[in-house]
Structure formats: C-alpha cells, structure tokens
C-alpha cells in the first residue's frame, strides 16, 4: 500500500465516519491485521470506542475478521474497499438510470447502511418515496419489492454470507466469532416474502388515522417490531457487477467513437446478453451466435440479418479486437473481448487505457509530447534520432520532452548491447513505453490528487466556518418566521443580517466546493480505468 492510498483511505474514513473510526482504520491499514487489545493500545482510544468503530467498519464491509488458531480474533482492513467510497455517487446514479427512483434509493440505502435485510430496505425506500409524493399518495411496497428482485436477478445486489446453523450442543463452546459463508448459488436468491404495506410519511395529518391502524395491525400480526420474516438474511451492493457495467459502457462508447452508432448497439446487445453469464475476470464473453444476437437486438433497430453479419465481420476484423470470431455454428459465433489488459506483448494497444494516458499527457505536457508518446506506443522501441524523425519535432525539443517523460517514468530506456562487453559506445539506447509502469505511476498520482482535493475542500470549509454557521442560523430563523407567518419586511430585515460581501463570500465558497467535489468525481473515473487495467493485467497468467 502506498502512502498516497493510505492518506486517501484516511481522509475518506474521517469524512464519512468520523475521527474515531479513522484512527482505528488507520491503525489497521498501516500496521496490518491485529487483535482488539493491540488496536486499543495502538490508537490510544477507549476500548468501547474501538469496539464501536470496529462494529461500524465491519457493518460496512470495510474490515473483516478472522479467528486465529490460538482463539483470538484478528481484524483486517480492506483498503481497496475503502477507496470505493469515492465511487458511491456513481453507483447510485447508475442504479437510477437502470431502475429508476426505487432502484436509486435501494442502492443508496444499502450503501449508507452497509447491509440490510430486504424487508427493512423495502420499508425505508417506500417511506422515502412516499415523502416525495403528493399529499394522500403512498408508495406501495410491491413496487419497491419488484425493483429489489430485479436488482438481485441482474446481480447488482447480493446476499451477504450467513451465520452457520449452530448445532445447539451445549458442550461445544461458541466460537469467539462466527464463520460467515455463503454458497455461490445462493447469492442472488430472494427469499419468499410477502411484504405488504405502504410507505409512511413522517409528518402528515391525514395519514395519521391510516398510519395508526396499519401500525396497530402490524403489531398484532407480529410485523414490524418483532422478528422480520427474513431475519438473518442480509443484502449488500455487488460492487463488482457495477464495475462490469461501467466497463461495458466504456466498451460501447469506444466502439461508437471508433465505428458508428449501429456497431456500438450490436456490441451493447451482445454485452447485455452476457451480463450474468460472464464470470468476473473472464477475458471474453461466452460465444454468442449471430442468430441469437439478431433475435436480441433492441426492437427499434431494423437492420437485416445480412447487415448484422457484415457488422459482426467488421467488428471482428478491426485491429482493436473488440469482437472476436470464435466459430461458425449458428451463422458464426462471436465473443466480446472484455479484458482490458495488454495481453501478450504483441497485442495491439488497449482501447481504453491508452486514450486516458494520452489525454493526460496532452493536458500536462502538451500536444507534441502526446505525439511522441503515441508514436512510441505504436512503434514500441525507437532510438532518439528515430523519434525526432518520425514525430517531425526538432531535436532539441524532442530531447527535452523525452527526458521529461523519462523523469516522470512514462517512458523508459532500453539498452541493447551490440557487443558482449556492453560498451556504451556500441549499445543501442531505445526509448519505449512501459504501459504497466506508466499506469501505476498515474494511478498513484490520481490517489494523491483526490487526497489533495479533499484536504483543500475541508480547508475551505474550515476557513469559512463562522460565516457558514451564521448563514445556517439565519436560514433557521427565516424558516421559523415564515412558518409563523411573518411579514415580508420582517423577513427582509433578517435576510439583511448577512451583508453583501458576506453573501459574495458564501457564493464563492459554494462555487469552489462544488468545483472540487466535481473534480473528485472526475478523478475517480480515471482511477477506475487505471485500476481495471492494472487488475486485469495482474490476472493474466
């Protein structure tokens, strides 16, 4: 774990869970897995505080525990999972685009609470949706439930490992910690629940009667306040599935920009068909026959079968190898290459990573640097002189750029000796791009960037704390005055409590904080691309 990652994890924990949880998380990240008493000693916190922090971290899947052979329990922090907190808005937004408001809120509730039983999640979401509806209307549990089921069917949410059935034998002492486990086949099985009910509003007069009766009924039937029917079955968000979705999206848009809209639709259809059949970490989807693809095209697309075949052939022939032909049965079977790694060393450049790298270079170092970089990617190894010639850049400038990139580890020098004694005068020095090293370096930079952004944002908030508090107080006063029906002139008087320059300052603050937040989201997109690339390369045998 690099310092940059540690710092970012620290900031994320502190911002979302407070300093106590941050201290505990930090200790685990920096020193590795340890038992409770060492944690207490290390952090200097009270034992109860550490216990609370661990409960929170485990609840949110940020820390897991393991019973050691000697009987003690060791806790381990999961840094890569902590970093995912940055991506929560993206997960929630994606759920919204796929499954509408119920989907969005379900995913949000699951992320906010770590894991929840289905009954609880559905009830909460129904309540929240009811709040936003017109007076007198409520959200029925059934609609939310059906969205829940769809999320489970498409694997966007999954069941958490469960507590094993205890043998109830009093002779065997209970283990210090349960060993949670779940079989692959059970992970998406939704329990048969009959969740009946409607969302409840928190403040509404007309609902009172209904709410009372319904609540009373539920109590009598052993509903809300007693053990729910799906006790012990918890659900969590399946982040990997969202990541797969993001990759699919990137593939489709890369196809669209390289070829045309129709070919991207073909690829999108193929990916949709393979959603749940592609194992995570697989390099290709399962083979799909062209007949199947034809049948699954979205209804709006009236392309003929031959046209589809032509598109498939074009896609398969493309040097970027989005689609590969795997056989001839059923009119030809095709797969989509989903792995992002470079594969064999002779493989053509990945269509996702390199554009990102190049774009970064473009902004940071200029278009000529980017030109040299692209050239090196294409030609693999070039001498100094060749770089100058191919890139059509004067020697001095080319040199300067190459050295800058060299110092940033974006390119490296490869020595090829002509003679066995490796004499410098008789050795080729070739510039080359080591994609993995470049990717790692950039990823490290991204982590640093986000951490810096967060710190700056927190600094801005701290600097303006007094003004923010004042503004909040004024808002509160205004709200209460409006509720009691004050006159416009009185309201105006209160508003005037915040002076013109102060108002300007608040505007600036808001603008800056928004900019920083948006930048954090943006950098996380790059982090996703880089991490996916590095991850998939590591998986290649």
């Amino acid at each position: 774990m690099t310092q940059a990652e540690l710092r970012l994890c620290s900031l994320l924990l502190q911002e979302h869970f407070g300093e106590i949880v941050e201290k505990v998380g930090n200790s685990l990240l920096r020193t590795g897995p340890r038992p409770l008493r060492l944690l207490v000693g290390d952090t200097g916190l009270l034992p109860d505080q550490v216990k609370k922090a661990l409960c929170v971290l485990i609840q949110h899947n940020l820390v897991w525990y393991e019973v050691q052979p000697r009987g003690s329990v060791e806790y381990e922090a999961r840094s890569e999972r902590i970093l995912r907190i940055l991506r929560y808005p993206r997960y929630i937004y994606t759920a919204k685009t796929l499954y509408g408001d119920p989907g969005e809120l379900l995913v949000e509730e699951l992320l906010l609470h770590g894991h929840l039983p289905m009954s609880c999640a559905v009830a909460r979401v129904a309540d929240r949706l009811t709040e936003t509806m017109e007076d007198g209307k409520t959200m029925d549990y059934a609609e939310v439930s059906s969205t829940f089921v769809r999320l489970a069917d498409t694997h966007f949410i999954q069941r958490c490992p469960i507590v094993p059935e205890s043998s109830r034998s009093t002779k065997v002492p209970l283990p210090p910690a349960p060993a949670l486990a779940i079989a692959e086949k059970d992970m998406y099985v939704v329990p048969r629940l009959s969740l009946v009910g409607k969302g409840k509003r928190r403040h509404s007069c007309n609902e009172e009667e209904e709410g009372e009766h319904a609540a009373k009924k539920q109590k009598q039937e052993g509903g809300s306040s007693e053990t729910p029917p799906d006790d012990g079955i918890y659900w969590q968000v399946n982040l990997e599935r969202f990541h797969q979705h993001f990759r699919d999206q990137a593939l489709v848009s890369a196809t669209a920009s390289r070829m045309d809209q129709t070919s991207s639709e073909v690829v999108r259809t193929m990916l949709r068909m393979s959603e749940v059949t592609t194992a995570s970490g697989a390099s290709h989807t399962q083979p799909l026959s062209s007949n199947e693809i034809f049948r699954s095209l979205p209804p709006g697309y009236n392309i003929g079968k031959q046209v589809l075949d032509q598109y498939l052939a074009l896609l398969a022939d493309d040097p970027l190898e989005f689609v590969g032909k795997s056989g001839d049965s059923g009119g030809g079977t095709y797969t989509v290459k989903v792995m992002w790694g470079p594969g064999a060393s002779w493989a053509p450049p990945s269509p996702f990573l390199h554009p990102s790298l190049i774009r970064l270079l473009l902004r940071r170092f200029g278009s000529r640097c980017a030109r040299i970089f692209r050239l090196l990617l294409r030609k693999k190894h070039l001498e100094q002189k060749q770089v100058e010639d191919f890139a059509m850049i004067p020697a001095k400038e080319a040199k300067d750029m190459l050295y800058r990139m060299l110092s940033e580890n974006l390119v490296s020098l490869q020595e090829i000796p002509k003679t066995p004694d490796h004499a410098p005068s008789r050795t080729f020095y070739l510039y080359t791009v080591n994609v993995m090293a470049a990717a790692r370096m950039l990823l490290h930079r991204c982590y640093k960037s986000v951490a810096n952004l967060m710190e700056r944002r927190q600094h801005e908030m701290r600097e303006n704390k007094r003004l923010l508090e004042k503004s909040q107080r004024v808002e509160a006063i205004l709200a209460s005055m409006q509720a009691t029906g004050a006159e416009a002139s009185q309201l105006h008087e209160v508003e005037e409590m915040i002076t013109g320059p102060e108002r300007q300052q608040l505007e600036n603050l808001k603008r800056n904080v928004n900019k920083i937040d948006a930048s954090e989201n943006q950098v996380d997109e790059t982090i996703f691309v880089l991490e996916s690339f590095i991850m998939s390369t590591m998986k290649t045998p």
Partner: protein
Amino acid sequence: LSMAGRGRGRGRGQMTFNVEAVGIGKGDALPPPTLQPSPLFPALERRAAPLPGGEEGEYMLALKQELRRAMRGLPYFVKPGAPRRDIERYSDKYQLSSPMDNAIDWNPDWRRLPRELKIRVRQLRKGRTAPLIPKQHVAVDKEETIKKLESLEKKEEEVTSEEEEEKEEEEEGKEEEEEEYDEEEHEEETDYVLSYFDNGESFGPDSDDNGDEAVY
C-alpha cells in the same frame, strides 16, 4: 589518497555511457545542477481541462454532497463521548442526550460479529422510560444512596408511567408532536419543559418509531 580526485575537472561530467547516443551532443550546455528541492507549487504551464458539465455531472455532484451530509447524521458516524464533568450537577438529569462512549447508537446483528465487540445498545427514546442509575465509581455509603435513589426512581416512574400511557394511545410516527402534546397534558414536576432535558441514560423496551435507526 591523491588518486581520489583524479577524474575531476577533466572534461565536463563524464558518464559511463556514450552521451551522444542519448542525444547530448558535444559542446551542448547541460542544464545547471539542481541545488535545492523543487518548488512546492511549481508554475502551471498549462491549465487543466474544464470539468465536463451536463446533467449527469450535476446529479452526481448533488448525490455526493447529499451522501456526505447524510452519513454525518447516521449513528455510524462515531463521536467521542462527552467528557465527564468534575461534579455531578442537577441539570445533568435534564440534559439532552449527548454521545456516550460505552453505548452504541444502533442495533447491529450481534450474531454476525465477534463476541468481544458486544457493547450496550443505547435506546434513543427521550424521557420515556425510567432512567438508569448512573454507575457509581466512588464507594459511597450504599444504603443511604440506595434509599435516595429508590425514592427518586419512584418519582420518576410516576412521571414516566403517565407518559407511557399517553404514548401508547397516540401511536408511533410523530415524535415531536407527541411530546409536545404530552407536555401540555400531564402535570409536570418541574418548571422545565421535559422534552428539552434528558440525561440520556435510559434503558428500556425497543423504541419503534425512530426512523433514523435500522430496525431489524
């Protein structure tokens, strides 16, 4: 000994490889040696690309800020307990519940967690149930204290049992409204509005109308 400085001064920085191959021609001026660490904020040669705007970006921005705000309010945001005061004051009995170290504000599923992590679950129901007798670390004359506390408890129980009855009738859902209603209705022991003061040390049956906590 005199051999140590032999190479110095003879030709400008000799390197082990042929510098021409890397592109530094003869007679070219090398950049001056770096004598200090690079500046903390080097001048920006190029400005960063503008952020992509658009509906998606705006929505995600709003989501992010909303998420941050929401998480600060959840019980998972662990705050340090209020520091113990030097003397126990009368008003402590009526203080609003402040964060406590030895209680957890939500109800995790203890079956899924290691046993050593279990601590008391605090129920955030205001003024509903008999307050717990605070732990006495100092060894005081037990009998006297017990008597005192018993009489206090009885008094509190009278008050709170009345409250409980009202609440049973009202049903759940409108916490603030209920409490206001109660205060006006039943006779108060003190001049203070009871809902404002709660020492937070209450134990009791599950509160089933606190929408913020996950109910399992």
